[in-house]
């Protein structure tokens, strides 16, 4: 065991993992975090806590992660490279571990241009790949990036993102390999809609032996509406939404689009359960946390395994 986190135990035991996501509030209302957490409790193995997602200021990821711990859920603490330099990042990693956080997701972060402080300085002292490597060296070698010894290494389960769709497609699997060599333990992918492309990517990863070295959790976001599908197709960089998805939602009929979106997501999850090289699903039900119990039920991923 690298961290002993619930997520690591679930994956190591060979269970099909199921993780969720929660965005902290744009203020100090802890109750809002607790309310969202209540929908996720018992339905997922760990919950990603976003870090100033879309470059918009929110309650810090580690603070919202601690609220989750208080509520009896396991957080997956997200950290982006945009807002902190290596000193601040390592300090936060030590603090987070000390207070009980055991999973981390290492990300570059959306460019500050998109957020509520577009004129901010983007730090990017290190990139997501270097962040993975930094956490791994803190954990396994008990060394800070600067070379000094860490007293009491932070035993984090190290995660990262992967986008199986962005061009150049041939490079995607090599980038995954690079993250593995940097030291990642698990991957949560970008939201998947183009199943053909995802199947190809996973097959490449299988063929290169990568899926034996890393746990891949397939990213799923149910479409709430046709507008959302169109927006994701046209406006969200790195997102690949085939026309068939939009057509299917259009064909669902008035008042039934969201249910169709959930149905599509559950069909995907069914396929991921059987797909070689896929170890679980990461459900990003953005501002739709109250639907998670229903989705988990319908996707037949309940009950979640209880680990020692």
């Amino acid at each position: 065991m690298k961290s002993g986190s619930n997520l690591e135990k679930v994956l190591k035991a060979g269970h099909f993992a199921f993780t969720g996501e929660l965005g902290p509030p744009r203020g100090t209302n802890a109750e809002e975090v607790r309310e969202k957490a209540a929908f996720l409790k018992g339905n997922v193995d760990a919950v990603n806590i976003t870090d100033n997602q879309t470059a918009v200021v929110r309650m810090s990821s580690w603070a919202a992660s601690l609220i989750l711990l208080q509520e009896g859920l396991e957080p997956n603490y997200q950290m982006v490279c945009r807002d902190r330099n290596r000193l601040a990042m390592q300090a936060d990693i030590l603090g987070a571990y000390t207070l009980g956080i055991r999973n981390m997701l290492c990300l570059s972060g959306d460019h500050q241009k998109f957020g509520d402080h577009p004129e901010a300085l983007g730090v990017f002292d290190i990139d997501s790949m270097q962040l993975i490597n930094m956490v791994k060296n803190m954990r396994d070698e008990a060394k800070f990036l600067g070379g000094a010894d860490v007293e009491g290494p932070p035993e984090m389960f190290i995660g990262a993102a992967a986008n199986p769709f962005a061009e150049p497609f041939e490079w995607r699997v090599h980038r995954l390999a690079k993250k593995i060599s940097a030291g990642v333990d698990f991957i949560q992918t970008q939201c998947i809609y183009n199943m053909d492309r995802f199947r190809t990517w996973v097959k490449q990863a299988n063929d290169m032996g990568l899926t034996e070295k890393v746990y891949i959790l397939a990213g799923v976001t149910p479409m709430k509406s046709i507008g959302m599908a169109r927006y994701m197709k046209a406006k969200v960089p790195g997102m690949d939404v085939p026309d068939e998805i939009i057509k299917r939602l259009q064909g669902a009929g008035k008042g039934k689009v969201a249910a169709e979106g959930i149905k599509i997501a559950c069909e995907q999850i069914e396929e991921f359960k059987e797909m070689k090289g896929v170890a679980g699903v990461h459900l990003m039900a953005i501002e739709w946390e109250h639907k998670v119990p229903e989705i988990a039920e319908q996707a037949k991923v309940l009950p979640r395994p209880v680990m020692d």
Partner: protein
Amino acid sequence: MIVAQRKPFDEIKDMIKDYKKVLALGCGTCVAVCLAGGEKEVSVLVSELDMAAKLADTPIDVSGFTIERQCDREYLEALDDMVEKYDALLSLACGAGIQFLAERYPKIPVFPAVDTTFIGVNQDVGWYEERCRSCSSCVLGMTGGICPVTMCAKGLYNGPCGGTNNGACEIDADQPCAWYMIYERLSKQDRLDSIMKFTPATAWKNQVPRTVIQPGYTKKD
């Protein structure tokens, strides 16, 4: 070369409003080539300031002069006898030239008339693009001659990020993704091996004022 842009006129006018005799100083090198601070731009600025002063009925005596390089003592020397007659200097040189000027004449207030913008290339007369952040640790050999520090909006050394968008950067569809270009170029050169390896965290060398002493330098008395 170093590329600069002239500051908005009102900002310049406001900076020198308390001075009666001002010398606008151009620089004949980089900023002249990029049409921001050479002889021609100095004369345009002097005329504009003159006209504005006349319209507002606030007399101000503005003259212009351009030297070859404001970042070089050899050329600054030509100003020694001239500047004493002015109560402020307005420099159209890059930030380095402005500082060297201010350093040479510490009793006279010096104001910038341009914003120094980047180290870049000349795409056409009047069209310039950034290419270098002078980071002191060049990786262009690894990245196929495309700078990830400058050309990637996040300065990633192990790109591209998840925001790469069919060859464009997530910040703007018209901004090419540096790492997409790096991949394409290295792929055509059959050199993808170069970016397969993990690039460790950068040892930043540009966090303090830098000095270069070339091996051939000999200290003069």
